């Protein structure tokens, strides 16, 4: 921070360089302090605690245990189960669900009537604006044994059941699709509005069908947006906690226990803070990797200045 804060355009005479640059950087100080204390601090603490056998009940006898927590994790069937569920949850609800439904909505919005457009976006965005705990309760009601979902599946001759019990990971995925699709829809709508119409018309003149137009012209033109959006929704989905916790608490019998819930349970329910933070650190690293990929795609299209 003490480095040179030169002006975009030099207007003031150069007096007391170091003092001036310090003075100019000063307004950033409050943010830096907060970010260091409450964000970098906990991350550092997370790295430290992950290598100890710290427990929630007391700090007495906390020992450095090296990679024990990690080797334990990779031989722990409950952890591997949780990794698998996180992959399923992210794949079904973000990569497939929110992404595809959002794209389909954005594409249909381009040709639908204004009334249909307004109505659909109002409902989809409405689902997005509601707080996550509310979304969780709504879907708990809808997917429950007497819920409306059974009326829908009953139409296809599926036996009525408590979907939260039989397929909990699918139930929470559906809720997450419902809640998160608006984001992808808005992002894709903005991107599609910048696709030049005459390019698409030219393709149609050349005899391309509607599907061919989509796969060869429209989608390739917005592919960068798709990549960025996929990164963002993956990151959002990786950290979903309240929705799943309120709907199923990770159960029944850990069938919807994704990594955030698993870390929480290990640290707070089993009081095994060291193991819990080790899981949290793994989650943080996965998030960090996705975040770096996101940055790379972003800075290619738009240099960070």
């Amino acid at each position: 921070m003490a480095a040179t804060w030169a002006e975009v355009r030099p207007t003031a005479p150069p007096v007391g360089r170091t003092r001036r640059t310090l003075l100019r950087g000063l307004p950033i100080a409050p943010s830096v302090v907060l970010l260091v204390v409450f964000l970098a601090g906990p991350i550092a603490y997370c790295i430290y605690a992950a290598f100890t056998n710290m427990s929630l009940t007391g700090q007495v006898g906390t020992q450095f245990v090296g990679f024990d927590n990690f080797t334990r994790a990779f031989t722990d069937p409950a952890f591997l189960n949780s990794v698998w569920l996180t992959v399923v949850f992210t794949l079904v609800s973000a990569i497939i669900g929110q992404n595809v439904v959002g794209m389909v909505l954005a594409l249909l919005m381009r040709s639908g009537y204004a009334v249909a457009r307004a109505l659909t976006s109002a409902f989809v965005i409405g689902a997005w604006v509601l707080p996550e705990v509310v979304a969780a309760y709504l879907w708990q009601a809808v997917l429950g044994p007497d819920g409306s979902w059974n009326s829908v599946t009953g139409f296809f001759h599926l036996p009525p059941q408590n979907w939260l019990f039989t397929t909990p990971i699918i139930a929470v995925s559906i809720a997450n699709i419902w809640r998160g699709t608006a984001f992808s829809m808005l992002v894709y709508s903005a991107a599609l509005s910048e696709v030049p119409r005459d390019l698409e018309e030219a393709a149609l003149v050349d005899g391309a069908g509607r599907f061919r137009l989509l796969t060869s012209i429209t989608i390739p033109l917005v592919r960068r947006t798709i990549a960025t959006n996929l990164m963002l929704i993956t990151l959002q989905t990786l950290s979903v906690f309240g929705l799943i916790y309120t709907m199923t608490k990770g159960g029944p019998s850990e069938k919807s226990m994704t990594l955030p819930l698993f870390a929480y349970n290990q640290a707070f329910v089993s009081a095994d803070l060291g193991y819990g933070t080790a899981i949290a650190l793994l989650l943080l690293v996965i998030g960090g990797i996705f975040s770096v990929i996101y940055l790379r795609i972003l800075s290619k299209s738009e240099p960070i200045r």
Partner: protein
Amino acid sequence: MTAAVTAQAGTAAPPLTRIRRRGRPRLSGRLLASLILLVMAAAFVIPLLWVILAAVNGDPNQGIKIMWPHPFTLDNFKAVMTPETTYIPLLNGAILCIGGTLITMVCATLAAYPLSRYRSRLKRPFLVTILFSTGLPITAIMVPVYGLFVQLAIDDSIPATMVFMATTALPISIWLTKNFMDGVPIELEEAAWTDGASPMRGLFRIVMPLMGPGLSVVAIYTFIGLWGNFFVPFILLLTPEKQPMSVTIYTFFGQYGQVVYGQLAAYSLLYSLPSVLLYLVLSRRLGGAFAFGGGVKG
């Protein structure tokens, strides 16, 4: 060569009609798109419909099916609007989220100014770090944050939770504010500087009034995010009298066995109201388009 040209010329007439027919979406295409949109809208509206109908349904045995309210009543709202379930959590939530938003906005505006106005070789690494941290799953650091709060003996404290929540919103707010500030031309400030105003005076008197709409967008966005946050107050605030509505809805309806669905629905509506209203203000301001995360465009 000439054959190809004439062949093309020969087929030139029919495609023209195709251009007219296909260039704009045809009527049947528009109708089909609208119908599919309406079907999808119906799928999205089912849970919303349930919460609205259940909230005004006076039937004490009502389950979780969508049904027409019979008898129509506002008793569900009356039942939950008590100090311990609604008013105190509402006040706690307001203190947490308004305070948190204020802290975020003050810090983000101050930080955005040098980032937008001066050049430095530290600027790019700082901005990259900020953007990177917008992607980090905050969920993952809650376990160590709780440990930190216990060690500092600031767990179960509203001010400490408020500052932490402000920090979680800070990276994205700095990024958005800086982008809005880049849109304010520097010439106006240069005039003020030559007249002897300090940069901070320029920020408060010239830049901030000019970017009022941008700042309000960031503030509303931050508030909605904090208002919906369940995990942070759930971990950091233990006393029921200190918890905001996001946690109360869970502790009140999630833990005590038989749920009165009408009351749960009424409470959900009360809790969601600030988010919905503020979103309406936000969408007015933005006219539909929103640069999420400062640039999702490709």
